[in-house]
């Protein structure tokens, strides 16, 4: 059975810090007793007032539900059901607080790594990048965008689930990276929609050496908050890296 080293961090963008907005990104992962690994991240809409709460609830719900669903369902069948549950949880929260659903607007990306395949689904502009055993990089999921640069799909939009993207690949990658859109311009060559290997190789090397913990990695968080990164993006940033140990 594969064992994975997992490293993650999410941090508020400089713009959010300047305006005293909270970090609207969130990420978490979970290793199931079966050995299956679940990873998820979410990016709350900058234009929605309580999207930080939305992002957190969406990630926690999708992980909880996947854990249950995978006892019965295949990964491909479980993911859309778990996204429905995440939307239901957000609707319940909106009702409880007497607020419209869209104040919790968030993207959501989730990945399942079983012993034999990788499966992912998302709504919005996150992405999932694979490194194969020959050190080749390929996207499993690319961001969905509107016509304009700051537009995407949120799980809270009417009919959003009909836009759910999903992808599955047999066999296991050497490493997998999940991210929200804050780092896209640094990590992908956007004209060709391909991963930029000089971005991913050192990152995966770092994750291989780092201690695997559920909590955010402080070194990775410090790098995300470094001048080098901040000079290129003012948005919230999230990375979740899983590498075969």
């Amino acid at each position, binding site marked *: 059975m594969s064992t994975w080293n997992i490293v993650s961090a999410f941090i508020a963008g400089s713009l959010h810090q300047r305006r005293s907005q909270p970090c609207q990104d969130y990420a978490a992962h979970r290793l199931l007793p079966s050995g299956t690994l679940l990873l998820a991240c979410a990016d709350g*809409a900058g234009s929605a007032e309580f999207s930080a709460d939305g992002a957190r609830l969406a990630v926690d719900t999708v992980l909880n539900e996947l854990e249950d669903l995978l006892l019965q369902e295949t990964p491909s069948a479980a993911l859309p059901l778990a996204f429905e549950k995440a939307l239901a949880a957000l609707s319940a929260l909106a009702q409880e607080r007497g607020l419209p659903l869209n104040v919790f607007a968030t993207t959501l990306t989730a990945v399942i790594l079983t012993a034999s395949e990788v499966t992912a689904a998302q709504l919005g502009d996150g992405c999932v990048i694979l490194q194969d055993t020959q050190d080749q990089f390929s996207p499993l999921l690319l961001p969905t*965008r509107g016509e304009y640069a700051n537009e995407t799909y949120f799980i809270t939009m009417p009919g959003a689930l009909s836009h759910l993207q999903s992808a599955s690949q047999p066999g296991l990658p050497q490493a997998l990276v999940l991210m929200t859109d804050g780092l896209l311009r640094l990590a992908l060559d*956007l004209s060709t929609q391909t991963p930029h290997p000089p971005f991913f190789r050192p990152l995966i090397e770092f994750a291989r050496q780092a201690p695997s913990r559920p909590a955010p990695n402080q070194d990775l968080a410090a790098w995300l908050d470094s001048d080098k990164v901040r000079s290129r993006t003012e948005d919230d940033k999230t990375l979740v890296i899983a590498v075969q140990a």
Partner: protein
Amino acid sequence: MSDIPLPLEDIEFAQNPEPRCPVVLVLDRSGSMIGQPMEELNEGLRIFAEEIKQDTLAALRVEVAVVIFGPVRVLDVRGGAAQEIPADASQAFITANEFEPPDIKLGGDTPMGEAVETALALLRDRKEIYKANGVDYFRPWMFLVTDGAPNPGSNWMEAAEHVKQEESRKGVIFYGVGVQRANLKNLACFSDQRPPVRLKGLAFRDLFQWLSKSLSAVAQSKPGDQVALPPVNWGSIDTST
């Protein structure tokens, strides 16, 4: 940050062009703008340039073109020279960090409709240029700064209708801006979404916030159903005159 582990220090970034936000300033310099309104307009232009440069992200992403009327002319705004150039979207725009506000001189009549149509065409063509070059872009903006007195009998109502249509397609964000004593009733005809505002005290800087905010990709059927743009608290709103 010397304590960042070595592999992370080695990370190199992809080079992608900044996403762009095209902005056309449509400026009234007709005879009725004589005196204080004209001074106010030029002052507003200087403030716009100053505030946009203070926002590092906006300074790199916003591209500015200037259309004056009348007669309708597109200005080259590099170095504040204010030379007339062809109405060509490949030449008319420069990034905001290079924008030097020209000093607009009083002109003649008020072909507001023609000026607005010119601006719409510039924005449409600019988007095509972005698409052809694989550059991401934001929804274009148009500012119409005027005293609100177009040529009598001219086609300005038709142009106003075109702006509204473009706005409802999410093709443009229109800001009607009136100088002192402006007829805001006329300006209100250009947008169903944002009432016109007074130029004086207009905080351009607050507008640029939305460049960093993520927005829904699907037009909402009910107006006001979605928080789509920063609220209109950036000027003294006055629709009563």
